[in-house]
């Protein structure tokens, strides 16, 4: 299919209607509303309707703007990382690991650096899981070691060695000053230094603010973004460590 062009949809195909909200550091008056229209115009919204303007604190105004955006979206030019592996049930994951790996698949997870937010790694690893899906601890054929929060990179490398990790899962929630990117690079470099290529575990990072296309830049095998479920991670582990590897061998 080629030439798939779409525009935002308000209530009629092709009307291009969008809604945005923002704050300008300007006290609320006629000029402020004009400034909001100017910004909306520069964003490609024309005509722009300021439907709500409200003073906030000293010298700030909050706006809600509706309008027609003149940009077009070319669906053919969209670049995303599509899931390139089959989604398996917990039972299927267990079966593949048992029959083809013939030992438990070892997974080590942690939040590294100063990040103390374990929600992500816990959602993926804890039995409790997320959104009704059980975490990796629930998978009989996976051996899960969850190191928790604020684990240093050397501690993580050491734990991966001790647990003979097939895969290392790192969660990063805090993104201030790009801490998530810095920490991930430090982690992947440490594994490259500590272990030869064939012996390195699969390196996986996850967090709500990662760009899933940055694997090469960050030196990891896979990045999982927001909304990832334990089942997807487990399916990927089986794909990358067993199915794909055997196919290539």
């Amino acid at each position: 299919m080629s030439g798939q062009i779409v525009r935002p949809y308000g209530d009629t195909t092709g009307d291009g209607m969008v809604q945005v909200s923002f704050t300008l550091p300007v006290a609320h008056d006629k000029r402020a509303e004009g400034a909001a229209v100017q910004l909306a115009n520069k964003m490609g919204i024309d005509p722009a309707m300021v439907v709500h303007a409200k003073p906030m604190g000293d010298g700030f105004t909050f706006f809600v703007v509706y309008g027609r955006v003149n940009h077009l979206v070319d669906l053919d030019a969209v670049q995303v990382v599509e899931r390139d592996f089959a989604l398996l049930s917990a039972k299927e994951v267990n079966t593949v690991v048992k029959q083809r790996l013939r030992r438990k698949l070892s997974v080590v997870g942690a939040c590294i650096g100063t990040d103390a937010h374990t929600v992500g790694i816990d959602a993926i690893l804890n039995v409790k899981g997320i959104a009704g899906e059980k975490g990796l601890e629930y998978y009989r054929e996976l051996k899960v070691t969850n190191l928790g929060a604020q684990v240093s990179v050397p501690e993580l490398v050491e734990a991966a060695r001790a647990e003979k990790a097939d895969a290392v899962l790192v969660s990063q929630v805090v993104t201030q000053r790009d801490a998530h990117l810095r920490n991930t690079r430090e982690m992947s470099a440490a594994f490259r230094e500590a272990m030869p290529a064939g012996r390195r575990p699969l390196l996986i990072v996850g967090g709500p603010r990662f760009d899933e296309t940055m694997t090469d830049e960050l030196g990891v095998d896979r990045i999982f973004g927001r909304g990832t479920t334990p089942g997807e991670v487990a399916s990927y582990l089986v794909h990358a460590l067993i199915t794909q590897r055997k196919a290539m061998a």
Partner: protein
Amino acid sequence: MTGKLDLDPVLVARARELARRAGQPVVDLARSHTTVSVERAVLRLAGVTGADPDGIPWVNRLVDAVVADVGLGHGVAVPVFDALAREGITDVTLLAQKAAAGSVRFALPTGRAATAARSAARRAVGAGVRRIDRRRAERDRLVTRHGDPRQRPWIYLIVATGDIYEDIPQAQAAARAGADVIAVIRSTGQSLLDYVPEGATREGFAGTYATQENFRLMRAALDESSKELGRYVRLTNYASGLCMPEMATLAGLERLDMMLNDSMYGILFRDINPVRTFVDQRFSRQVHARAGIIINTGEDNYLTTADAVDEAHTVTVSQLLNEFFAHEAGLADWQLGLGHAFEINPEVPESFRLELAHALLARELFPDAPLKWMPPTKHMTGDVFRGNLLDGFFNLAGTLTGQGILLVGMMTEAVVTPWLSDRDIALQNVRYVLGAAGGLHEDFVPAPGGFIRRRANQVLGEALDLLERIGEQTLLTAIAEGTFGIMKRPADRGKGLDGVAAHEADYCNPATDILEAAA
């Protein structure tokens, strides 16, 4: 008991008795151990201030030097004041500097020298405790002058820029917009620092370092706001992590008004050693009791990792334990901001009625405590419109069930650290609900035999069952086995264990002596 849920007073009394039974061995453990942070807090009360050129506080250098010479189990007060007498100086900070340079040796004095060191230590620490007393009296005066917030719940807002000089105008703006309590979120990672950073700080991750100077700057700014607004604006920080006793002490010295201080949070969520936590916690609560600080406990956190319906009773159990530990440390009911949260999956049928049942249960079990009501976080998805609706229901549940402190929920939870506009929209949400339904708790009496009463009584029953089980095995075992928030935390593991020591026969801590004599 105000009687909206028809709770059986015999069961409630039984629950408190079981909490006491589960908590008493932990109190005994806390009374027979000390930690490096407890000893550093004693030195802070005795007047040691400042840090070395690398930013390591002199209290750390001094405790390390004493421990190297005589160990931790005797307490540092006597060796320090004995050395002070031998060196012929009066300035404890100067002694710390000399000790760090290696020019002072510490010993355990006997006879007359020991008696002299004990009384000198008691005098110095007593002066520190009196400074805390003066700050408490000052708060009482300011509250009388400016007044308390006009409504309940008090509106609690967070600032978290990482830079104290950015936090200050944001906090003042939030107070002007209606916040009664300002919490300055700490930098991620501070809980695991085994020292308290020094000075005004402008670099933090997802929060601002808690330091004595930052405390002072923010309290002074909010004193200005209180004057301007005609109501006393309270300030909150965190007595949690490895430096709990010192944080409590600094909060008392700088007239902070509330402190986050949970009995098990550090163990479960920061993997801090359980013994370290319980010893530190008891001392920090004794200081909070003296300083007139309201503690906020962290039960809301359990529900972010465990299921808010299945595990509702663990919140009740933790509240009962927190209450027992708090009373034991001398805190009064008005100082117990026991935590709980609106974290039930909104897709669960009758989720709002379940929330009301849980919130009302806490209200009825702890009628004189200013409960801390925490907003939804786990089921905030990035759909900010739905999030704003959920926050509205959270606010409604808060006012319907008479919560004391309401942490304002942000529709951008899980998306960004709150923007100026997020905070404004969130406060608008709170104002609408409190304005439209602020007195509705008077009319809200769940029907006898109805869903809410049945659910509340069921949760109380499950809490009793869990307390019975804990009683059979001890609290430390329960924590080790993952009873709370799923995390398993054995007593011989976790961070900070090397900073714990059992009391020797001659252990001396003048701060504990003074604080316990008053209680």
